[in-house]
């Protein structure tokens, strides 16, 4: 079959240039700070983040307004020869979430990685800001890319920024954690690339939109999809490939942990969804979807139980990420529409994405709170948290609010997400996943209350090693409140998240 070379899918839309801007802005920062030898790197990054937030809002508004895809055809070379960037509802929401969280993390990191006036930039602070810019650019490129190889480069951009961030402080154990992360990432990227090769060899294009028409259920496509999925699972740290995550996410400095746990693992997850739902629709068999969700269920149970057994706060939060990633994979059996019930699929789709966004905010808040607590106490041993609730009340409230979202307690983004997923299991008649979700919620409640119980306990002898500025506490609270507020706008995102996806265009939640 010769590929149809004349196909003209879609041209750049009016607001398309925004997609380029949001990818290129961080690159500007990286180049500028390299040229300046690190001078003003903190201010450059924060300024770019502010501009980037405006661009992200503009993209969100453009998608919302036009109720259609925002497209940019780079260099005006149509796919399959050229590369297109596309923003549907999910990408736009993702880019906005990324911009908000990275900006919050940037503001939070000022006290740890800020530059002293007049002093030369230190190693860790130069590396931190550059890597943060790299992660931001990589995430945007992953969210907006629509070409499997372009996405590979974006994913590598993300990885090469994420790995050194783990050991940016240079401690021995964190270097070990970064090394292990790197090895998993190497396998992951090469397997993904292998799948890409097979797809090009069989279908002659890497453009996701074009592929959707060309891919047929046949061995080559299954092989490619399987290889890419396994590779991306290693990067997403889905059970049982999660081994690298806890030491890496717990070992990174708090702002690093926040961006890694909240956003970086989601980058590869988005790609898995893109492959199965966008590039190869119709390929997702019942068995494959059940298998992915089974791994997800394993992650929910295993991660939650292990989180309960941790003695250290940051490690507990990291294991909670292992568990919360698991929920995302329920999207595969529930939103694939195997039962032919479009309402169930649409609800599951919205619920799955809401879980991703609310977890991103909640986990950012949790790691930031854990960072403030560790900064105040000089350690993060859960058993010795007594009295911190009185010393840092706002931080502990923020931790608790974020915890509510993880548990799925109303009114929070996590509640709506999990409730939608639960409804979908009922509609789709796959009640077994509901059982896992309920147990996972209980276990999450267990570990959140374990921390809160200790933190709210009395301890007369508590002495703070360092005072914590009030505005940093408020920042953490603001991020936690974002996670909660996501639960108050449930109807809006359901329609928005289906923009650009005709098969999902039924208004959920009548």
């Amino acid at each position, binding site marked *: 079959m010769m590929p149809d*070379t004349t196909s003209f899918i879609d041209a750049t839309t009016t607001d398309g240039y925004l997609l380029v801007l949001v990818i290129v802005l961080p690159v500007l920062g990286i180049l500028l700070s390299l040229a300046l030898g690190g001078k003003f790197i903190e201010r450059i990054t924060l300024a770019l983040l502010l501009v980037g937030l405006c661009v992200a809002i503009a993209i969100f508004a453009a998608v919302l307004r036009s109720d259609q895809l925002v497209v940019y055809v780079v260099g005006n070379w149509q796919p399959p020869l050229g590369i297109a960037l596309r923003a549907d509802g999910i990408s736009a929401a993702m880019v906005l979430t990324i911009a908000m969280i990275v900006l919050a993390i940037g503001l939070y990191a000022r006290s740890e990685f800020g530059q002293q006036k007049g002093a030369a930039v230190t190693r860790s602070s130069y590396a931190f800001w550059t890597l943060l810019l790299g992660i931001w650019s990589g995430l945007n490129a992953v969210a907006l890319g629509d070409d499997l190889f372009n996405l590979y480069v974006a994913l590598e951009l993300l990885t090469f920024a994420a790995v050194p961030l783990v050991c940016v402080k240079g401690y021995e154990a964190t270097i070990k954690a970064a090394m292990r992360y790197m090895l998993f990432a190497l396998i992951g990227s090469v397997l993904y690339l292998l799948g890409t090769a097979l797809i090009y060899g069989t279908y002659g294009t890497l453009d996701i939109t074009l592929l959707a028409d060309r891919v047929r259920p046949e061995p080559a496509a299954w092989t490619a999809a399987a290889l890419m999925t396994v590779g991306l699972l290693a990067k997403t740290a889905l059970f049982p490939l999660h081994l690298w995550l806890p030491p890496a996410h717990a070992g990174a400095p708090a702002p690093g942990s926040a961006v890694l746990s909240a956003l970086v693992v989601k980058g590869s997850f988005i790609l898995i969804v893109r492959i199965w739902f966008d590039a190869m629709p119709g390929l997702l068999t019942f068995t494959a979807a059940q298998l992915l969700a089974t791994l997800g269920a394993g992650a929910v149970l295993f991660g939650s139980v292990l989180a309960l057994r941790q003695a250290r706060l940051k490690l507990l939060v990291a294991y909670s990420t292992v568990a919360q990633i698991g929920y995302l994979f329920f999207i595969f059996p529930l939103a694939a529409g195997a039962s032919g019930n479009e309402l169930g699929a649409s609800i599951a789709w919205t619920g799955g994405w809401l879980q991703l966004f609310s977890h991103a905010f909640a986990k950012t808040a949790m790691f930031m709170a854990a960072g403030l607590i560790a900064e105040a106490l000089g350690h993060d041993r859960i058993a010795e948290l007594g009295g911190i609730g009185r010393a840092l009340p706002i931080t502990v409230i923020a931790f608790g609010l974020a915890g509510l979202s993880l548990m799925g307690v109303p009114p929070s983004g996590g509640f709506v997400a999990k409730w939608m997923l639960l409804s979908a299991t009922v509609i789709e008649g796959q009640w077994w996943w509901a059982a896992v979700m309920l147990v996972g919620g209980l276990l999450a409640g267990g570990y959140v209350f374990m921390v809160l119980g200790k933190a709210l306990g009395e301890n007369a002898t508590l002495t703070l090693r360092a005072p914590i500025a009030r505005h940093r506490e408020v920042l953490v609270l603001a991020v936690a409140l974002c996670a909660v507020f996501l639960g108050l706008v449930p109807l809006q995102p359901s329609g928005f998240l289906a923009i650009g996806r005709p098969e999902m265009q039924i208004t959920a939640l009548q």
Partner: protein
Amino acid sequence: MTLVFACEVVLAGLLVAIATWTIVARTAFAAIVLFMVYGLLLAIVWVALSAVDVALTEAAIGGGVTSMLLMGAATRLRAPTTPVADVGLPLRIAAGLLCALVTTVLGAVVFFLPDVAPTLAPVAKDNLAASGLGNPVAAVLFVFRALDTLLEKVVLLLALVGVWSLASDEAWGGVPGLPVYARPGRILVFLAQILPPIGIIVGIYMFWAGASQPGGAFQGGTILAAVWLLTMMARLQDVPAINARWLRLLLVVGPTAFLAIGLAGFFIADSFLAYPPGIAKPLIIVVEATLTLSIGVTLALLVAGPPERLSQR
């Protein structure tokens, strides 16, 4: 069976044999030496596949600079006091079965490939004139899929920042720990005196020819990196401190020019990373020339590793 095909069978057999040997070799040193041979054989395979641009890249980067990097690591690593045990036999058998399965499935996919291969060659050829370049591979890299190439430059720079971030706090901003011989022999010095002029000419020729023939910024840059590393190893030149202004500027000049011309495309052409017709070729040559420099410096610094001391010894 033609003579050429017989040669290809021998080549493929050799390649697999050397790859196996690389994996199972007893010492890391032996494995790396074998890997160099492997890289050269692979370059010949790429020529057999009519992909001369890739052959040049593979020989320069895949076989050349990668081997140098690995060799540098092997000589710098302190051997542990306890012998290293690989995974146990059961796991090895399981891994063997898994890998055999992967190979079999891939082999089957190759066997059952569609008779008429999908290809973008005709589209690329049709648009070659519009791209302003004569070499179709360069046209894909710098025109049709320029976004990939731009992001890949950022990947290279980020990897460099990642490598630098592994320095100690005291050595930050200082001199990379390239293994430099305290007393380089006269022969090495001789080589380092005679090769650079030739290397520079060949490197520039590579990038210049790349517009219309195989070659380009990557291959040219790698050769520049190689001769620079050679002169530093022979101590004819100091390894520069990473906060040297000129070094920073060389690192970013290529990607910056690429990005700037790309952004200018918004206004002077009809799109980001589009070149206005007529001056497309000169613009791409500016991009490629500056990229050749930046790639050369970046690759050399990646090999040199993180800074280890504040000043020249």
